[in-house]
């Protein structure tokens, strides 16, 4: 039927088509303007995200994308300045003591509906986060506050939390134990304020859409089409609005496909583009200049030390340590610049007393070499009374990079030590499940810092830590963690972390591999972007679009 109609309409149709075609050509130049990655006049940039923010409720969210969005639309007591140092946020001054802290809130901090941000908003948010009914997976971020952990375990009412509003503009915090890094925590999303009346008016839908959230940060979420589009606009009620460079952050693309992201960048549609091995090659070939950034996360191999596992044998672990050179892994296998080989579980980005921790306490290098590795393996065989080491199960992720690394380990251990490594490739949830159940001999894992203190990595191997997936238990290590947790003396604390660093190298419950780096492209007109380890990355609070000839 259709074909027939086409035949009869053939003549007038072609005229109509021609007219439409001419019309569409007229409309096209408009589309060019709308596609710009940066707009100097309007101070607007376009970006892409790998997924939409899964949850913008700051008390329960856990992921990096939500953290990025929240860090631009919300503000905690403290925040980060353009050089990544802690600076006043809602609090204009503060006092940190051994037993607690006092924050004096600025009187011109406002919610996006114009009402003032008060100390009560912090009390409400923190109580909500530790309330077991909220079931926040990040409630532990608040554990330094007195009674937080016991409330979270359901042993005390939320009103017992060590935080109190003295009037509208003064907040008193009592600590569970001395917490020298507490100020950094107040910039973390779990510590953001929430206004009770608004939260309760939204019920289950709080933060589900752009108008189900109340903002107190430099931007507001003006539009949110799920899975498709987010638009952040400068917040007219923000106390520091005069110092916010950008007027609009528009995010009309949501995709994880790195080639698509690179294509968008090439097409001039987005201002920032992360690169992977393949797209990096193309980017360099086309004359773009990639930038590097250390994310502060560390990747490692973790051994299972649960009873009955063959990896409980220290000499077997030493053998693997001696044969595996992180530098070779990073340069020959990962092959993406920006990643840094590491002999320590503490990344170079971690702060020490004055300088970076790793500058003050360089990581001891383990002795390496094929002969040494075989010597340790021989010792392990004798101790275990085995002719041959049985196959080892290595639990790995299912991404392309994880695959490449796993195959490298498998081949390295087989050729050098005659070890039979069976790869157990699992998707994210299955891998986590097997990790927590201890269903592995070796697992390839990683850890990102939650707060700006070496403790975020140090206590990972404390015997009581649930995240200690290999169940490393060493009373000496635990003792150093206790000292670092309670000592008020920064020098003593850092010495304790150095001892942990040494113990991990000697005992090898974990084999550090590399610090992860990002390679990315940034539009030359986009300036002032701060790449941040804490408090949401990238930080666009100080960003602006320069003119074309600047």
């Amino acid at each position: 039927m259709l074909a027939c109609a086409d035949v009869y309409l053939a003549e007038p149709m072609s005229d109509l088509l021609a007219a439409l075609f001419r019309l569409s050509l007229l409309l096209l130049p408009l589309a060019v303007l709308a596609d710009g990655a940066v707009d100097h006049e309007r101070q607007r940039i376009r970006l892409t995200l790998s997924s939409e923010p899964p949850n913008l409720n700051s008390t329960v969210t856990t992921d990096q994308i939500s953290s990025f969005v929240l860090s631009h639309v919300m503000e905690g007591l403290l925040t980060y300045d353009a050089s990544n140092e802690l600076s006043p946020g809602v609090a204009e001054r503060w006092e940190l003591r051994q037993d607690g802290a006092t924050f004096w809130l600025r009187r011109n901090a406002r919610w996006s509906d114009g009402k003032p941000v008060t100390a009560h908003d912090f009390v409400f948010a923190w109580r909500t986060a530790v309330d077991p009914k909220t079931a926040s997976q990040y409630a532990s971020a608040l554990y330094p506050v007195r009674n937080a952990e016991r409330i979270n375990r359901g042993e005390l009412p939320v009103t017992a939390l060590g935080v109190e509003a003295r009037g509208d503009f003064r907040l008193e915090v009592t600590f569970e134990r001395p917490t020298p890094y507490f100020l950094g925590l107040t910039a973390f999303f779990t510590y953001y304020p929430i206004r009770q009346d608004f939260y309760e008016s939204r019920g289950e839908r709080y933060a589900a859409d752009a108008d189900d959230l109340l903002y107190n940060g430099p931007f507001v979420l003006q539009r949110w089409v799920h899975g498709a589009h987010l638009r952040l606009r400068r917040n007219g009620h923000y106390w520091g609005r005069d110092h916010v460079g950008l007027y609009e952050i528009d995010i009309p693309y949501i995709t994880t496909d790195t080639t698509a992201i690179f294509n968008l960048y090439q097409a001039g549609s987005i201002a920032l583009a992360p690169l992977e091995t393949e797209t990096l090659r193309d980017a360099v070939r086309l004359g773009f200049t990639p930038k590097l950034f250390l994310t502060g996360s560390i990747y490692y191999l973790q051994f299972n030390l649960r009873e009955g596992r063959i990896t409980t044998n220290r000499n077997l672990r030493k053998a693997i340590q001696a044969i595996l050179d992180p530098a070779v892994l990073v340069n020959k296998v990962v092959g993406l610049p920006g990643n840094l080989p590491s002999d320590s579980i503490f990344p170079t980005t971690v702060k020490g007393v004055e300088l970076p921790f790793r500058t003050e306490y360089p990581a001891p290098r383990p002795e390496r070499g094929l002969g040494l590795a075989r010597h340790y393996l021989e010792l392990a065989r004798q101790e275990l009374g085995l002719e041959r080491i049985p196959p080892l199960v290595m639990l790995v992720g299912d991404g392309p990079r994880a695959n490449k690394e796993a195959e490298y380990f498998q081949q390295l251990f087989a050729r050098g030590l005659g070890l039979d490594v069976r790869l157990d490739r699992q998707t994210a949830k299955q891998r986590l499940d097997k990790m927590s159940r201890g269903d592995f001999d070796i697992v390839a894992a990683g850890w990102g810092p939650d707060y700006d203190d070496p403790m975020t990595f140090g206590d990972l191997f404390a015997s009581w830590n649930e995240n200690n997936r290999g169940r490393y238990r060493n009373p000496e290590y635990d003792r150093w963690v206790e000292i670092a947790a309670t000592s008020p003396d920064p020098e003593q604390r850092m010495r304790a972390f150095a001892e942990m660093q040494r113990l991990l190298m000697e005992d090898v419950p974990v084999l550090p591999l590399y610090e992860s780096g990002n390679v990315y492209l940034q539009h030359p007109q986009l300036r002032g972007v701060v790449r941040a380890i804490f408090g949401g990355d990238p930080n666009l609070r100080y960003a602006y679009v320069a003119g074309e000839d600047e």
Partner: protein
Amino acid sequence: MTGFLLRRLLSSLITIWFIATATFFVMHAVPGDPLSNEKAVNPEIRRHLEARYGLDQPVLTQYGIFLRNMATGDFGISFTQQNRRVNDIIREHFPVSALLGVVALVIATLGALLFGALSAQFRDRWPDRTIMLSVIFAISVPSFVLAALAQWGILSLNKAAGFTVLPVAGWGSWRHLIVPAVVLGLGTMAYMTRLMRSSMLEVAQADYLRTARAKGLGSLRIFVFHHMRNALLPVVTVLGPAIAAVTTGGFVVELIFSIPGLGRYFVQAVQQLDYTVIMGTTVFYGAFLVLMVMLVDILYGLIDPRIRVGK
């Protein structure tokens, strides 16, 4: 006719129930824990999370609750997006996939009719050979390669033109829709072209075509009303599954062109073990497929009066 419809409706409901039940138990049998996270949580938090999603109940009780809720059309809240209802996810994202799918299918069907008929008409001559070679290409190249190629094509086109002829990715206007729809529909188009071609060749031998010619009808009229119409049946048969395939199979295309369709949620849900979203989308897609097949059955009778449903 009414009896037939009722019977079909009943068997459709049983099919949907079966899909839901099978998915439910397979999903729970998959190792892994939907509540696990990079950070371990204390048992109290765990207990509350389990209670929120009903995971503290025995699996059979959970199944009962699920069936009761499904009957009222409620699939609960997502595990990964804790403040979004699965119904909202489907309601907001399915129309996108559907629009993309419908456009893809229209392109595929029109293309298949045209190319199939052409290649039958010019059997074993160059138009036929060219079309059949392209068909093999379109069937064998996977959609992620096609999508990436198409995107590279848009990029080159824009560079050559000096302005944005078509957007590289994104969603919002017909210009965002056109290339993804072609990419998505290409495989179906190729498959249907082959069907159309062989069906046209078969019908070409039929007596009624000779009769029509003998009656002195115009060749275009014969081609369209006598030849093509009778050759359509096998193509219509695959239309039902094709609709479902195209509207549900757009995951890769949605990802590469950054389109907010339901396909992405479906695949992510499986990866994340998001129980409620897995159940919601699977049951929804299942019901959709069953409905499409039923519609095709009814369409049969309209095209070919010899097949009267209900016999």
